[in-house]
């Protein structure tokens, strides 16, 4: 029996190879994900291990209770540094000052986007810095820059660079040196760095305070690390925290592990989608293979093979196919993971070398998933094969389509059950968040499966309707009818594309709805026509000189221009967003804010205003007192709540008098609203403000549309990332459609021969097959778009209370999906169409 199986497989190499491609893809993604995650982690660990390489003990400021940006205010004082130096067993001591700053590049723009620009004090020992050109900075107006900075900023030795921090004004520095890192690297992890004198670094980072970000301590000859650690901790007391370098490295690794596991999960998700989609493909192939062997199987049954033997023979084939495919997949995945690691290490970490880690789990998972999925997918076709009656061997195989009533009924029930679960979960009727989430996610999954079951039923009307597109051509008409001929097969084939398109459509619909809701919200609630703000992706919150506000107010047609400062402050022991502005009444008016209690137009220095839910969170009302400490504030301040605002996303948060901006983390305004007079020339105002902001590289003037774009840029990244999924689904879909078409052509050889005999040209034959292919692919896409829109609509409705109240259809993307489906159809049609047009008429119509 096994030999028969093997011989059978050898005879169907091409089809099996195509099918196994899907399994290969799935297991490769899984293996690659795990290899990449492990390798990046190990690479980053190597990098982390290199920092403070010759220190035994590190001393850093104690983290405040409420984190956020208040952290930066903290430093280890010069007194503590002196005390550490005086501690017994301490050898060399070095102190580091570092934090993010802004530098302006050759193009007048702020250097870097996601990757930060860091200020550091030259001579610290966080890492070795090797001067490649020039010398170390000696005065406060000199700077040495990393080689990466030279590349990114377009500035080099002898040039002047403008740099500033959140608290300092723009200052010009002469670049006197360019340095690299050990291993001839330009950067440690993609960041750019500027090394100043210690005093200048402290001015930039700590507003001139004589404190440090980190103290690195060498042990004196013969000193024990543990004793040294204890001694230093005793010396620094509560002001700072001492830890061994190993502990510090471990902490850093744990932090990067979070980021790397995100990438890993993303790839893993792709792998799982590929695997899910390939279930249909594999099941379909086995059904096809068995359909082609009806007589053979019946004959085996007739000569005495038991049902179990038939099932086992099919499963043996699946096992072998799964094993071969997943071994290849695991190998491809490991290789791909290695390549990806190098790419990621080069581009994201700019690490000259990467260390490859191949965890055994990567190989095991790839093999287990690949083999498991293949065998599971073959189970139904195998059982079906075993039910073929022996008498089938004697008569011509008549393939009457089994009725799809049962399938359809099940599909309807499952879809409705899924929709109900989703509705329950999304409307939060189940009491707990976890239960709601489970119900929503599980419901979505059920809807998915339900619709997949319904595809056979849906294929008749939909394929018929889609086929009307080609009704102008006779070959097209025939192709359309062929596509509708075997609803089950068409359905399973289209399912691969449907799943991919459903996922991307649902996601894109939701994200587009979020965007549109936001845009509508601004449109309805924000009086001001123009915003001044900077990108959210910047590492240092974009801000601008408040002096420009007067210039903006002086522009013709500008009714009002109000700037906004914000800080993440500690209020009554909780982290809260605090805003301030020189024109409280203006900001509330322009943002469409309303008072719920105690209306006021200005705030005195001891007054504070807040929105309803934030007030409720702290349990305070008008007349109550709160205590607030700002990011850079040394002392807490007491405020009396004088007004409560109606909840409104734009005005939510706390408001204090502008007297406190110096204590905010960002001491400059981060945003401004510009209200253009009714009938005023918005374009002219935009141009004028643009000119005023010429020296403010971080911010620009934006209309509502542009501001929404800027505020939702992270959604765009998510939308792009999710499109990659579609690409993967498309590959699998092409394989599936090719498989189905080849089978159909094999089955219809006689028909094709007849058509060619009575005068159908090769071109017409090709067109007929292509139309069938494109129709199936479009069917999958249309179904996917339909289900995706429905899911997206469900999600949007569920989130309507969280102000995602606009349902927006991502029309261009959806059109793109349709085009992609046509491409899938065309691509998949190539080989089958050629095959169909080359059908040998004589052997096709020969009988006996």
């Amino acid at each position, binding site marked *: 029996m096994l030999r028969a199986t093997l011989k059978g497989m050898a005879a169907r190499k091409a089809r099996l190879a195509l099918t196994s491609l899907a399994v290969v893809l799935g297991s490769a993604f899984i293996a690659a994900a795990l290899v990449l995650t492990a390798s990046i982690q190990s690479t980053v660990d190597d990098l982390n291990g290199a920092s403070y390489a010759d220190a035994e003990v590190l001393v850093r400021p104690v983290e405040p209770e409420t984190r956020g940006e208040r952290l930066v205010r903290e430093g280890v004082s010069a007194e503590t540094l002196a005390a550490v130096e005086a501690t017994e067993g301490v050898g060399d001591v070095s102190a580091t000052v570092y934090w993010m700053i802004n530098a302006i590049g050759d193009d007048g723009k702020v250097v870097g986007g996601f990757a930060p620009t860091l200020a550091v004090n030259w001579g610290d020992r966080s890492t070795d810095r090797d001067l490649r050109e020039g010398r170390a900075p000696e005065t406060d107006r000199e700077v040495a820059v990393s080689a990466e900075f030279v590349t990114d900023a377009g500035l080099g030795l002898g040039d002047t660079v403008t740099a500033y921090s959140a608290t300092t004004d723009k200052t010009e520095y002469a670049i006197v040196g360019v340095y690299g890192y050990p291993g001839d690297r330009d950067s440690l992890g993609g960041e750019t760095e500027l090394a100043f004198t210690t005093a200048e670094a402290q001015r930039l980072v700590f507003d001139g305070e004589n404190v440090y970000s980190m103290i690195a301590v060498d042990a004196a000859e013969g000193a024990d690390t543990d004793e040294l650690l204890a001694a230093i901790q005793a010396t620094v007391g509560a002001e700072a925290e001492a830890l061994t370098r190993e502990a510090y490295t471990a902490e850093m690794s744990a932090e990067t592990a979070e980021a790397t596991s995100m990438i890993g999960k993303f790839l893993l998700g792709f792998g799982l989608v590929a695997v899910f989609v390939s279930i249909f493909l594999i099941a379909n192939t086995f059904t096809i293979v068995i359909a082609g062997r009806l007589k053979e199987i019946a004959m085996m049954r007739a000569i005495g093979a038991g049902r179990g033997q038939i099932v086992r023979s099919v499963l043996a084939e699946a096992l072998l196919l799964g094993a071969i495919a997943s071994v290849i997949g695991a190998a491809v995945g490991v290789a791909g993971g290695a390549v990806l690691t190098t790419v990621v290490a080069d581009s994201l970490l700019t690490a000259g070398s990467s260390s490859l880690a191949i965890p055994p789990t990567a190989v095991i998972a790839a093999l287990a998933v690949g083999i498991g999925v293949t065998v599971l997918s073959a189970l139904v076709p195998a059982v079906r094969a075993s039910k073929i009656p022996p008498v089938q061997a004697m008569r011509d195989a008549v393939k009457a389509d089994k009725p799809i009533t049962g399938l359809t009924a099940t599909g309807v029930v499952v879809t409705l059950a899924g929709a109900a679960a989703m509705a329950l979960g999304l409307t939060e009727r189940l009491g707990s968040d976890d239960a709601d989430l489970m119900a929503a996610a599980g419901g979505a999954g059920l809807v998915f499966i339900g619709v997949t079951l319904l595809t056979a039923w849906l294929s008749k009307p939909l394929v018929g309707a889609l086929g009307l597109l080609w009704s102008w051509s006779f070959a097209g008409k025939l192709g359309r*009818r062929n596509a509708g001929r075997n609803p089950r097969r068409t359905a399973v084939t289209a399912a691969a594309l449907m799943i991919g398109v459903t996922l991307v459509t649902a996601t894109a619909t939701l994200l587009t709805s979020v965007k549109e809701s936001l845009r509508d919200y601004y449109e309805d609630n924000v009086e001001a026509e123009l915003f001044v703000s900077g990108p959210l992706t910047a590492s240092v919150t974009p801000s601008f000189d408040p002096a420009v506000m007067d210039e903006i107010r002086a522009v013709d047609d500008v009714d009002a221009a109000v700037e906004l400062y914000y800080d993440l402050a500690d209020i009554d022991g909780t982290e809260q967003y605090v805003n301030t502005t020189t024109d409280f009444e203006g900001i509330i008016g322009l943002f469409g804010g309303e008072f719920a209690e105690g209306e006021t137009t200005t705030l005195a220095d001891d007054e504070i205003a807040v929105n309803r839910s934030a007030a409720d969170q702290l349990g305070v009302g008008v007349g109550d007192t709160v205590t607030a400490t700002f990011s850079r504030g040394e002392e807490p301040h007491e405020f009396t709540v004088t007004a409560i605002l109606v909840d409104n996303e734009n005005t939510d948060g706390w408001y204090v008098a502008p007297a406190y901006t110096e204590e905010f983390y960002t001491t400059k305004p981060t945003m401004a609203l510009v209200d253009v007079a009714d009938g005023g020339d918005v374009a002219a105002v935009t141009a004028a403000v643009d000119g005023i902001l010429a020296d403010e590289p971080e911010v620009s003037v934006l209309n509502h549309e542009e501001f929404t774009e800027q505020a939702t840029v992270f959604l765009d990244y998510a939308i792009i990332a999710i499109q990659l999924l579609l690409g993967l689904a498309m590959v699998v879909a092409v394989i599936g459609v090719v498989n189905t078409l080849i089978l159909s052509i094999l089955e219809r050889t006689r*028909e094709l021969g007849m058509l060619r005999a*009575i*005068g159908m040209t090769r071109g017409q034959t090709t067109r007929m097959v292509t139309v069938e292919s494109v129709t199936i692919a479009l069917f999958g896409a249309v179904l996917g778009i339909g289900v995706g829109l429905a899911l997206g609509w469900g999600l949007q409705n569920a989130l309507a209370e969280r102000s995602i109240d606009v349902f927006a259809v991502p029309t261009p993307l959806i059109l793109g999906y349709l085009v992609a489906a046509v491409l899938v159809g065309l691509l998949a049609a190539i080989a089958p169409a050629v095959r169909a047009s080359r059908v040998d008429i004589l052997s096709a*119509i020969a009988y006996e």
Partner: protein
Amino acid sequence: MPLATPPAPQRLRTGARAAVTASGLWRAYGSGEAQVVALRDVSVAFASGAFTAIMGPSGSGKSTLMHCLAGLDTTDRGTVEIGGVSITGMGDKVLTKLRRDKIGFIFQQFNLLPTLTAEENILLPASIAGAKADPAWIHQIIATLDLQDRLSHKPTELSGGQQQRVACARALATRPEVVFADEPTGNLDTRSGTEVLRFLRKSVDDFGQTIVMVTHDPTAAAHADRVVFLADGQIVDDLQAPTADTVIDTMRGFENHAPIAGEAR
């Protein structure tokens, strides 16, 4: 199969133009030791408006002859003319068009498209050509074949005889120069087979259709005006106005001395 064959009048129209002519046809398959010569120097002409049967035992080359005549197979040597035009050496495109416009086919297996209704199947050649069929003509064929009530049925809803009648209508729909029928009754019961043969006969008599039919059934051959006998790739006899009995006699005559060649396709 005792079937009353109508008395056979002299039906050959002497001096009629030849619809299909083959001269000096050679066709061999395979090479070397395994070579099988299916046709050896076959020359034959089929008169326009006549019903000719090609008979012969299995492997005699009758199907090969028909395939070569219909432009479905190529010849090694010799020429084939259809309606006075030589088709030998024509490219696939031209041949396909020729088959579409000048030739009708009736197959043993009916070969109807299961996705199309009977009427759509009848109109298939015209549809492929992107042309409009002559409605009066189509109506006439349908009426003659008694298919009026079956037009909207799919092939799976038709009996074998009905399917073959649809196939006949399809073959005649474009008024081809010649209809090639390959064992048209091979898959039918006697009654249905006779119906089909009567129609073929009628289409020759009433519409002047040219028909070339390959068969191994003497009764079927008896419906023809003329029977050409093939054995071992050669024409061994040519019988005018055949009856079932004369056909059987003729076959017996040459079967006794002609060796049965191996399978020729």
